[in-house]
């Protein structure tokens, strides 16, 4: 990622509109690939998509994007160019930075939203669908269905069973490590909690911080909560807990915090003052041995270091569940209720779900893997291959705490609560009681 940034920093290439002729050629080729990708996905799909594509020769639609980083921004631009080349439909893009986009989604969707916008799967999708701010897109999915496995299909539905979402890519959360460090010190990848603790002790004896940990921004620690909960209590309980249907002050949640406390001595000092980038730096510099984070941690590794980075799934705790669940947030697109150009918007969503569109996008994004079954794996990096395999091999896919529950609960209750736990790990009882009271107030039950 870092490399891509630097190579793209020439003034002529960075300017948003300045597209070199070479790029247009590339895009043209991608457009051809797009056609191929769609036709490969089944006869019925081909029939429907081509009829959609034919019907609007020169319409336009609009796209609200949270991809403000230069690399994904350019990737989307390429995707839209392929779309326009294929269908003649123009796409007006409004780009807002990721965090603002997310925090403003409420007012954005009620204001003047674009037809199609970037969004996330999970409760976060269902919430806005239920509030009537999204348009159901079952007709788009009649084309897309054969191209996605059931996990992605389910993640795209609202609580009412209708489709509201087109997935683009996903990335798993796992324990990252440096292969060279493990080889040098003879560390073995832990499969069970006991092995994990033993490894931590060994690393500590070697003068290495076993687990890099950083939670200044509040959200990274949620990944640890999620995985511990799913390992200890199982996926089904986790999802019910996130939906507010299980008590927070019961024995099960206490067990999660108590287990977490066991590994706190092995995590970075002063985690609450560290950004994830500083945590990643500890892993880069071999000051730390492992790091529980999404695969985007790879953005901090450059050159040879990038090839040295690997990950493994979180060790099993309760043999009942083994390693059957993983946090793998899915990013994709939804259609606003206020969409003006319904037909063109659906046309765009159909294209965005296609393997062709994902191929174009993923070329520039080596840390995510494509959601579409037919996405070309030939160009996948080792990380992408492993990510896809890890997710495909998991029975259950969670979306991450702040995507699986009400956003207000995640940000105003859970972030402070987890930070309080990290400050006072021994006071679990009063912590879970406080969470439970606030949960009741927010969920209303």
């Amino acid at each position, binding site marked *: *990622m870092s490399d891509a*940034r630097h190579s793209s920093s020439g003034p002529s290439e960075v300017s948003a509109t300045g597209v070199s002729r070479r790029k247009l050629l590339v895009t043209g080729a991608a457009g051809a690939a797009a056609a191929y990708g769609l036709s490969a996905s089944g006869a019925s799909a081909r029939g429907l998509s081509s009829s959609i594509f034919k019907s609007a020769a020169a319409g336009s639609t609009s796209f609200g994007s949270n991809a*403000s980083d230069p690399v994904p921004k350019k990737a989307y631009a390429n995707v839209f160019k392929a779309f326009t080349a294929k269908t003649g439909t123009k796409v007006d893009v409004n780009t*807002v*930075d*990721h965090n603002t986009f997310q925090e403003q989604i409420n007012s954005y969707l009620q*204001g003047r939203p674009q037809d199609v916008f970037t969004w996330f799967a999970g409760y976060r999708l269902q919430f806005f669908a239920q509030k009537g701010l999204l348009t159901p897109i079952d007709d788009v999915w009649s084309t897309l269905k054969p191209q996605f496995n059931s996990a992605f299909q389910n993640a795209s539905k609202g609580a009412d069973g209708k489709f509201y979402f087109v997935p683009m890519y996903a990335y798993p959360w796992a324990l990252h490590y440096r292969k060279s460090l493990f080889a040098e010190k003879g560390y073995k990848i832990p499969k069970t909690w006991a092995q994990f603790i033993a490894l931590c002790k060994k690393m500590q004896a070697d003068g290495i911080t076993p687990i890099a940990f950083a939670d200044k921004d509040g959200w990274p620690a949620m990944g640890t909560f999620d995985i511990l909960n799913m390992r200890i209590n199982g996926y089904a309980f986790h999802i019910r807990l996130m939906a507010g249907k299980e008590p927070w002050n019961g024995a099960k949640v206490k067990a999660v915090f108590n287990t977490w406390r066991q590994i706190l001595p092995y995590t970075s000092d002063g985690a609450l003052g560290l950004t994830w980038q500083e945590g990643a*730096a500890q892993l880069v510099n071999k000051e730390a041995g492992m790091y529980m984070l999404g695969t985007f941690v790879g953005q*901090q590794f*450059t050159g040879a270091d990038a090839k040295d980075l690997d990950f493994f799934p979180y060790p099993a705790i309760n043999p009942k569940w083994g390693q059957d669940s993983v946090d793998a947030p899915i990013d994709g697109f939804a259609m606003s209720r206020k969409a003006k150009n319904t037909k063109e918007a659906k046309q765009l969503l159909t294209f965005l779900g296609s393997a062709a569109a994902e191929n174009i996008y993923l070329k520039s994004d080596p840390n995510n893997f494509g959601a579409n079954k037919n996405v070309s794996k030939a160009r996948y990096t080792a990380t992408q291959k492993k990510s896809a395999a890890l997710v495909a091999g998991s029975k259950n896919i969670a979306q991450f705490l702040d995507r699986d529950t009400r956003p207000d609960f995640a940000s105003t209750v859970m972030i402070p609560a987890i930070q309080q736990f990290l400050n006072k790990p021994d006071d679990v009882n009063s912590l879970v009681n406080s969470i439970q009271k606030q949960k009741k107030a927010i969920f209303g039950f």
Partner: protein
Amino acid sequence: MTTVATTEDTRPVRKRPLSVSRIILHAFLIITALFWLAPVAWAVFTSFRPYADTAKNGYVSFPNTLSLDNYRNAWSQAEIPLHFWNSMIVTLPAIVLILFFASMVAYVVSRFSFWFNVPLLIFFMAANLLPPQVIITPVYQMFLRIPLPTWLSESGLAYDSFVGLIAINVAFQTGFCTFVLSNYMKTLPKSLTEAARVDGASVTRQFFGIIMPLCKPAFAALAVLEFTWIYNDFFWAVVLMSSGDKRPITSSLTGLSGQYFTDNNLIAAAAVLVALPTILVFALLQRQFIGGLTLGSTKE
């Protein structure tokens, strides 16, 4: 009109010989100034370093390379010229309107004795002192419902329009300027307008012909302050402007932070670029700035 005592510093400057106490004072001020400058200087210094360097070696390290790359990238990635222009579209009309509204109210309050003068001052002053978070939800909901002709606002609403952003800044800042200007106008001798009134000049003539020109120093001072505040505002723009390409420069800076990855050195470079206009405005108008800022002055 020539005899008007403005509050501009008119004391004769007598350079004193350097006494011991003066030397101590200078030493103190220099040390303090260094402390004041150090964080900014450090940030500026870092903005010349590539991210890869500081990520690897930490920020407290000897720089391998110094370059303008961050500035170049920030300039194009953050689309500085576009967003700077947006900032000007919001800031300059807002300042003009604020000063105009504030001087009208200040004129009425300071040159006439109406029963409602004090309530009026409270009405304006207090509005400026409220925390902006307090009113954001209703303002947002109102802006979604206020239609504007499309030549004023592409969206057809006050929401997501420059007009809306200007309006909220004007409403929020007018109070402070009203207060400063009314104090300033009170220092203007009443005899000035008295003569004009005897000659039969209307209040509007007195206002535009006599009072407004005399308020120039106060306008300059307030323009500097308001420029800084509105230009640096980020709160209103983020909530009330949904189009990324219409955002003023301060709120658009966040566009340099990625979903996960943030190149802080790049942001530092962008932030330095963004800060330059305010520093420049202050440096250019410093003399008028302090001279024109009259906050309950007792000197006449």
